[in-house]
């Protein structure tokens, strides 16, 4: 009974993702790129949500796991002949080893998880502001190293020659894996324990929950999902390290915050809504037609709109547009008189 009533909680985000993918198959190839991008963003924001949403701790680190996943999947799938030309500084091992599409995605998720675990081991002791700053430092280090280290990737250049295997179905399946994993996690005892520490740290500790361990678990899972998202993304378009730093961190955080950082539905709805707005204004930098009206906006409008929305939601409705609640069907309410009676008899 209880399980059945909870089904819509999982179905709502899953159906939203599926609807996005199906709609994406119907539209023109030009519009399709935006739908693909949205599905990858869903994966990233859900990864963000798994840690931030369940633990209530701020983390800027997720994008560094996305970057690492992208680097892993990218370097391991560029055809060997092309590697020597586009990434001449690559280490010998990486130069001579290649894997297929699915294997590269699994390895990307693995790399994200291992990196997150390694980073989380010392950092998950921190909370609040310290956690925010420390994870920001992790992001800074990742960006700095990936920018200059030519032995592990293309450095400042964009990835070229990565097989573009992320079509609509691969993107949708990737996003669905993230959504289902996130939901499964938050329904396990581990997810519930972490949520308990979020609500009341002292009470959770008194009940014997190790905040450190639960946070570390969520952080690692978040790293795995972020790595997978990075892998999906690098198989979609030629990524560049500059696109995996502050702006992406800001955009994905805005999606989570606006949607409602406390629920999986919030993460998915926030991504779909904000990435729609974002894509619209990005496209509008080269004129879009809206009802026969030519709209052209200067570069930067998309980011500005997202920033204003994010600040407004933080100030006016901190729980986000979903109120940080999962989806549930409206329940039949017991009449008040019944309740009164029940109360009187107990």
């Amino acid at each position: 009974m209880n399980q059945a009533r909870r089904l819509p909680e999982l179905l709502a985000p899953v159906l939203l993702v599926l609807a996005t993918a199906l709609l994406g198959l119907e539209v023109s190839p030009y519009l399709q790129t935006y739908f693909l991008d949205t599905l990858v963003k869903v994966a990233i924001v859900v990864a963000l949500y798994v840690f931030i949403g369940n633990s209530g701790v701020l983390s800027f680190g997720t994008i560094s796991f996305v970057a690492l996943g992208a680097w892993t999947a990218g370097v391991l799938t560029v055809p060997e002949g092309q590697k020597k030309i586009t990434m001449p500084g690559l280490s010998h091992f990486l130069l001579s080893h290649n894997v297929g599409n699915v294997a590269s995605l699994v390895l990307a998720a693995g790399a994200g998880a291992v990196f997150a675990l390694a980073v989380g081991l010392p950092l998950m002791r921190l909370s609040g502001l310290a956690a925010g700053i420390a994870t920001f430092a992790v992001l800074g280090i990742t960006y700095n190293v990936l920018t200059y280290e030519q032995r592990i990737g293309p450095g400042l250049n964009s990835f070229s020659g990565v097989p573009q295997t992320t079509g609509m179905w691969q993107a949708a399946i990737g996003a669905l894996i993230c959504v289902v994993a996130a939901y499964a996690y938050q329904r396990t005892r581990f997810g519930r324990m972490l949520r308990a520490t979020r609500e009341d740290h002292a009470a959770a500790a008194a009940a014997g929950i190790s905040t450190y361990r639960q946070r570390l678990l969520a952080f690692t899972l978040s790293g795995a999902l972020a790595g997978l998202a990075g892998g999906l993304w690098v198989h979609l378009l030629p990524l560049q390290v500059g696109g995996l730093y502050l702006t992406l961190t800001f955009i994905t955080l805005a999606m989570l915050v606006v949607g409602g950082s406390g629920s999986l539905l919030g993460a998915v709805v926030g991504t779909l809504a904000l990435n729609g707005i974002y894509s619209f204004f990005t496209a509008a930098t080269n004129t879009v037609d809206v009802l026969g009206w030519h709209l052209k906006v200067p570069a930067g409008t998309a980011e500005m709109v997202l920033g204003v929305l994010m600040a407004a939601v933080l100030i006016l409705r901190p729980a986000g547009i979903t109120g940080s609640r999962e989806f549930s069907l409206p329940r039949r309410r017991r009449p008040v008189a019944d309740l009164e009676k029940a109360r009187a008899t107990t």
Partner: protein
Amino acid sequence: MILAFLNITWPVFADALALGGIFALMAVGIGLVFGVLRLVNFAYGQLMMAGAFALAYGDQWGLPNWLSILFCFGVVLVLSVLLDHLVFRPLRMHSPAVMLVATFAVAFVLQNIALIAWGSFGKTAGSLGVWQAPWDIHGVYIRKIAIIAIVTAAVCLVLLQLLLTRTPVGLHMRAASMDFRTARLLGVRANRVIGGAVLISGLLAGVAAVMLSVEQPQITSTWALPETIYVLMGVVLGGLNRPIPATLGGFSIGFAFGLLGGILPSSQSQYLPSFIFAAVIVVLLVRPNGLFTRGAAPVERV
């Protein structure tokens, strides 16, 4: 002697001191607001950017230097007060992490407004370029801006220290940053203290913007953004809660950047940011209160 041994020339040393001074000003500006509001202002660099654009306009309109500097201060101050009223005050009761995210959003809004208004090339603020010329001090050529920045930073910091220790306003501010609630109970007026801190922080941003605009006269939408990140790291290194440790932290980061950037080949100095970020992580783990503070970390309260 030591300088020669380490292969550091006087001009490099002076430039490093100057960069340290500018970073120290930014650090104390961020630290002051953090003290009273528990707010880490990620948008601080964007405030400076607005001031630098004001300087660029002063340059374009042919204003005398003192007037365009005044204009710069005016823009930064108005923007600081506006941000305080629109964003910081409504969020005052939220956790520091939420406020950090909010200032992150504000930084992006300001940055992209600048991008919309002035494009990706921005504007040039060249009228203070005369300060780039060197002074001849006993055969050593040191750029004027280095000396001006060092002196200005020192004067500002001394004035601020006097304000904090010798005036009632300063006393209130220090009290508020020790324990806001108790300070209020004892008659410190919250809004006035916060307003004061925001104003002083804005003024410091203006001064830092003028100095930095001489070093980097091409003002774009991301102007001062990397510096802000390093200063934030420096402030955390030193200790966010107190002005002097925060200043020292900011100064050491700037000085290290200037010095190591000056003497190391670029193949080594390119990883400098990584070392600084790593140092911040280590400090947060080992001494969460900062390097330059005394006493034990406060026990986590339940």
